[in-house]
């Protein structure tokens, strides 16, 4: 009888310890990764490109709704595309929403990121392109299209 009671106490203590461990485990240092398995995990597992393909439309609508709430809706077409670095293959390093005339926005497959000097600052140049990669010595930009939002991924 005493042995059974001891076992019960040990089991209870073990369960309490597991519960407290769950409560006490700190969140990951970067906000957004600790989502109990949501978008954050999908990004880690499948990569930015997949997430953009899967959620691009939803993100695009979300941005447009936010703009509408500020009476700043965009006239013309918008869509979300991945950002790729020049000469680094087609691996997405981020995503942006692009905007412009519908016939031009439809051509955009990605946005090429280059280093750009803006005034005295070093920044990112963002060139909408009609290919999924940014290779070669000359980028073929899609005229009339600009970036309207930058989407940051927690990686």
């Amino acid at each position, binding site marked *: 009888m005493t042995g059974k009671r001891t076992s019960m106490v040990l089991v209870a203590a073990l369960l309490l310890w597991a519960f407290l461990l769950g409560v*006490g485990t700190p969140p990951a240092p970067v906000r957004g990764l600790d989502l109990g398995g949501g978008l954050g995990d999908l990004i880690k597992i499948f990569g930015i490109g997949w997430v953009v393909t899967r959620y691009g439309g939803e993100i695009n609508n979300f941005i447009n709704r*936010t703009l509408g709430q500020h009476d700043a809706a965009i006239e*013309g077409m918008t869509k979300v595309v991945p950002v790729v670095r020049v000469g680094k293959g087609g691996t997405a390093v981020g995503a942006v929403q692009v905007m412009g005339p519908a016939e031009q926005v439809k051509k955009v497959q990605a946005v090429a990121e*280059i280093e750009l000097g803006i005034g005295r600052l070093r920044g990112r140049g963002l060139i909408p392109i009609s290919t999924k990669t940014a290779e070669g010595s000359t980028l073929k930009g899609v005229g009339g299209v600009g970036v*309207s*939002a930058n989407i940051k991924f927690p990686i």
Partner: protein
Amino acid sequence: MTKAKRHVAVLLGLLVAVAVSYGAGRLVRMAGVTPTAAWAEEAAPGVVLTATAERVMAGDREAGIVKINGVEVVTINASAGGLTGYERALILAKRLNDAFAGGVSPDDFRADIVQGMNVVLCGDKVLVTADQGEADLLGIQRAELAEQWAAGIRMGIRQALGLPEPGATEEAAQPTGAGEQPSEAGQEQPAETAAEETATQETQPAQVEETATADWVPPEPYDQKNVPILSVGEGIRVGMAQVKGPKSRVDQVKAVALLETHFKNTLEIEIYVPISTSVPGKTLARVQGVGVVGVAMFQVTGRG
């Protein structure tokens, strides 16, 4: 059932129970019972760090006081880079809140020298520059000023989280010598204003050249220019943007308003709205047809 099978069944049941208990604990944490915005192992549960900036007038000088959870940590009296002390305080408060959102400990904040300037860093991100004007007002060296500000921030966080003071090491450190004081450059530029909106557009990488597609002719010639990025709400400059569009529209653009939001609590989204006003109003005066083709934020490190 044999005794061995019974033992295995009990063990498996126990493992499942432990996993369920752990999962329940995680759920409790995610429900917000414990701190999520600013985590410190010894922190008081439920405390969220928040930095604010208060405007105070000293004669005709607009100064700013930065507080962490109501505790005064940094006072900025001097103007620098075209910003008043209060505007610089607003930027510092915003950067502190950004840092808090990512999780910090007091020791993350320290004084250092970056690009010849005495600055306060959080990790490797510059928060504020200890400028000569402020140092002169207080009659101290810039290195000492940076140390004082960093110590003030650490003290404010410790007080907010109920953490013990580390003792003498937390006292405002004296500069250890001339090596810590960068040379008087003359063109000192604080981190808050690390760029001016001088609309020059140089420095395209040589191997990259944008070409317009031949099968689309714009209704009018396109133009581009550099304008400041202003945060919606605070209206302070947080970076520079290069905007592009029909020339008549680009001419109307005075700034790019920055709206920040989150998608599914995971993705941070920065929305750029080219506007025809110098200050974002309650409703944004969007200039249609103009897009952003380049972005540079005032942060020294990290991607834009």
